[in-house]
C-alpha cells in the first residue's frame, strides 16, 4: 500500500461511500466524501437532516457497514492504517479508546440501571483491563474535570437522577477516559437548552485546548459551528459541497447552498426577511449526475448536470459549484 498521507493529518478520509439496500430501493447515503483532521483541530460537518453527516461519522467507527444491507467503501487513514479495512475486533480496540464518540441524546447513550461512576469507568475496565475500584476512582476524577459538582457522591447516582446537561457531561467524561486522539460529537447539544448548550460548547473548547484532542463536530446549527469550529465542511445530499476555515466560510460563503442556508436562519437583531431555499432536499435513492443542488439553485445553468468535484478557489477554500468556480 502506498503511504502518501500527510504526517500532520491525524485522520484522513478519502472517497468515503456508504450505501444501503432498503425496502424503498438502493440508497447512496454518502457519495465520496474527503476530509482530514489535524491534531487539536475542530472540524464541523454541517448539513440538514438526511444529508449523510451522521452516517459519515458512524462509518468511521465501524458502526455502519457490518450488516448485509450496508456497504462502506473508501479509506480512512489513522496512524498509517486504513481503519475501514480492519476486522471488527481491531476496530473495537479503537472505539472508545483512540476514537471516542458523543451522541445527541444523553439519556439513550447511558445505561439506566448502571451507576454513573461505574459506566464512566467501564471504558477503562474494557480497554485497559483496570480493576473496578481503580476505574471508578479515575472516573470520579474525570467527572470532576468536566464540571460535575461533588463528583464522588454523584458517581453513585443513576442516570435518571442527572439533568440533561449533567448527563451530557458524564458522557463526555466517559469518552475522555482513555485519552482519545479523536472525539466525534454527533449533535452534542441539540437536545439541550441554550444556556446549557453554551456551557457544553465551552467544555468542548476547553478539552481541545488542554488535551489537544481533535474534534469532528456534526451539527445542523451554523451558530454552533461558528462558535466552536476551526474548519467547516458543508454537506448536501451525501457530498461535501464547500469546505473552508470558519472565518473564511462565514465571511465569504461561495456555494449557493451555503449562502441559502445562511440567509434562511433567523438571527437575533436582524430584521431582513428570510429567504427560504425553495423545494425539498433530495431523497438519496436516485443517482443523478452533476450537482445535486441544481433543482433548488437560483444560479442553475445547463452545465450543472455535468460532474462536480471540489475545486480550490482560494487557499484552503474548496467549493463544488462550477458556476462559482468560473467567476472566481
Amino acid at each position, binding site marked *: 500500500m502506498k503511504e502518501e498521507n500527510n504526517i500532520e493529518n491525524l485522520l484522513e478520509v478519502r472517497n468515503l461511500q456508504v450505501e444501503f439496500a432498503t425496502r424503498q430501493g438502493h440508497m447512496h447515503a454518502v457519495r465520496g466524501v474527503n476530509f482530514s483532521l489535524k491534531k487539536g483541530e475542530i472540524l464541523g460537518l454541517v448539513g440538514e437532516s438526511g444529508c449523510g453527516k451522521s452516517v459519515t461519522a458512524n462509518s468511521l467507527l465501524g458502526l455502519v457497514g457490518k450488516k448485509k444491507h450496508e456497504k462502506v467503501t473508501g479509506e480512512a487513514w489513522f496512524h498509517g492504517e486504513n481503519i475501514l479495512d480492519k476486522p471488527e475486533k481491531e476496530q473495537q480496540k479503537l472505539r472508545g479508546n483512540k476514537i471516542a464518540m458523543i451522541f445527541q441524546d444523553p439519556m439513550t447513550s447511558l445505561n439506566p440501571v448502571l451507576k454513573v461512576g461505574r459506566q464512566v469507568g467501564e471504558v477503562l475496565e474494557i480497554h485497559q483491563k483496570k480493576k473496578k475500584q481503580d476505574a471508578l476512582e479515575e472516573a470520579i476524577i474525570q467527572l470532576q474535570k468536566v464540571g460535575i459538582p461533588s463528583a464522588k457522591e454523584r458517581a453513585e447516582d443513576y442516570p435518571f437522577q442527572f439533568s440533561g446537561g449533567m448527563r451530557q457531561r458524564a458522557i463526555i467524561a466517559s469518552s475522555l477516559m482513555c485519552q482519545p486522539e479523536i472525539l466525534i460529537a454527533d449533535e452534542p447539544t441539540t437536545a439541550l437548552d441554550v*444556556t446549557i448548550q453554551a456551557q457544553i460548547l465551552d467544555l468542548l473548547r476547553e478539552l481541545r485546548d488542554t488535551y489537544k484532542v481533535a474534534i469532528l463536530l456534526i451539527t445542523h446549527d451554523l451558530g454552533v459551528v461558528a462558535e466552536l469550529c476551526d474548519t467547516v465542511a458543508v454537506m448536501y445530499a451525501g457530498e461535501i459541497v464547500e469546505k473552508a476555515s470558519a472565518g473564511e466560510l462565514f465571511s465569504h460563503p461561495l456555494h449557493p447552498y451555503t449562502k441559502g442556508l445562511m440567509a434562511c436562519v433567523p438571527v437575533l437583531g436582524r430584521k431582513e426577511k428570510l429567504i427560504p431555499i425553495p423545494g425539498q432536499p433530495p431523497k438519496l435513492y436516485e443517482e443523478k449526475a452533476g450537482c445535486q443542488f441544481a433543482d433548488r439553485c437560483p444560479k442553475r445553468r445547463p452545465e450543472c448536470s455535468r460532474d462536480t468535484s471540489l475545486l480550490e478557489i482560494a487557499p484552503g477554500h474548496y467549493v463544488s459549484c462550477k458556476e462559482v468556480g468560473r467567476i472566481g
Partner: protein
Amino acid sequence: MDREIILEISGLSKEFAVKGRMFPYKKEMLKAVQDVTLTLEKGETLGIVGESGCGKSTLGRLIMRLIEPTRGSVVLEGENLTELSSQKLRKHRKDFQMIFQDPYAAFDPRMSIKAILEEPLRTHGIPKEQWEERITRMLEMTGIPLDALKRYPHEFSGGQRQRISIARAILLNPKVIIADEPVSALDVSIQAQILNLLKDLQEKFQMTMLFISHNLASVQYVSHRVAVMYLGRIVEIAPSDALYERPLHPYTQALISAIPVPVPGAGIQRKRLTGEVPSPIHLPRGCAFRMRCPYGDEACAGKVPELTEAEPGHYVACDKYKSAEVIHEI
C-alpha cells in the same frame, strides 16, 4: 391607532399534583404556570420564549382550555372561557385554534387531506355550499397544490404537512391562533418557508397569534411583542426590538448571550449562566432566578419580584434592573 384588546389573561396558574420523590404517597405540587397576566391586542403576534420546562406550552394549553387552570381567568372578547360549561366551550372552540409542533402527529393518518380540512367545517356547522370555496382559498393561501386533497398525510413532507395544519387552523377564521413550536420539528431550510408564511398570513388577515418557541431568534422574527418565561412566570415582556436591544432582566440578557450566532469567535467572550434550572416542585423563595443570577443577593430571596413598567410597554420582574451594571455588563 385604537387598540382593541381581544384576549385578557389574568392571574393564570396551573399546578400539577405529582408523587413525592421521598414519600411517593405524599402529593407534591409542581407549579407549571404561576400568576401569568397578559393581554393580546387584535392583530398582534405575541411571542412566548423560554427554556424547556418553563411552562410555555402549558400556558398555551391553558388558554385553549385543553387543561383546566388552577386559578385565574382567560377572557376572550368579554367572555370568560374558564367559566364556560363544556357545551358552551365547544361553540367557542372555533374562535381559537392551535398549530402543533409535530405536523404528522396532528393528523389522523387514515383521513385524506380533504377529510381533514372538512372536519372542522362540519363540526362547527358551516353550510356545505361554502366548504369547497373555503378550502380552495385556504390551500391557495398556504401554498398547497389543489391535488393534495385526494392524498394522505404520509405522502407529504414535514413542511407541506405543517402548511396543511396551518390551513386547517385558519379555515374557521379564528380570533386567536396559538402556535406551539410550529417550526421546531422542521429542517432549517424549511423553517424559513413556514415562518414567512405565518408572518404573511398574520399581516394579510390581521391575525392575532400567540407564538410559542424556545428559539428566541425565530420568536423575534415573527412577533411584535415577546414575553420571556422562567420557571412558570413571565420575567420580562417588551416590544421585540426593545427586548433584543435593551434586555433588562438578567435572565433575558443571559439567554440572548447564550445563543450561538453565525459569526466566528463571537461566543468566546460572553458571560455564561452557571448551574441549572431549579425544580418547579421545590421552587426557591423569592426570585426563582436568584441562584443563577450574577446580581442575586439576600434581598432577592425576600419576595417574588412583580412585573413593573420600566419603559413604556417594557415590563420587567426584577428589583435590580435599575442598577446600571445590570444593563451594561453583559
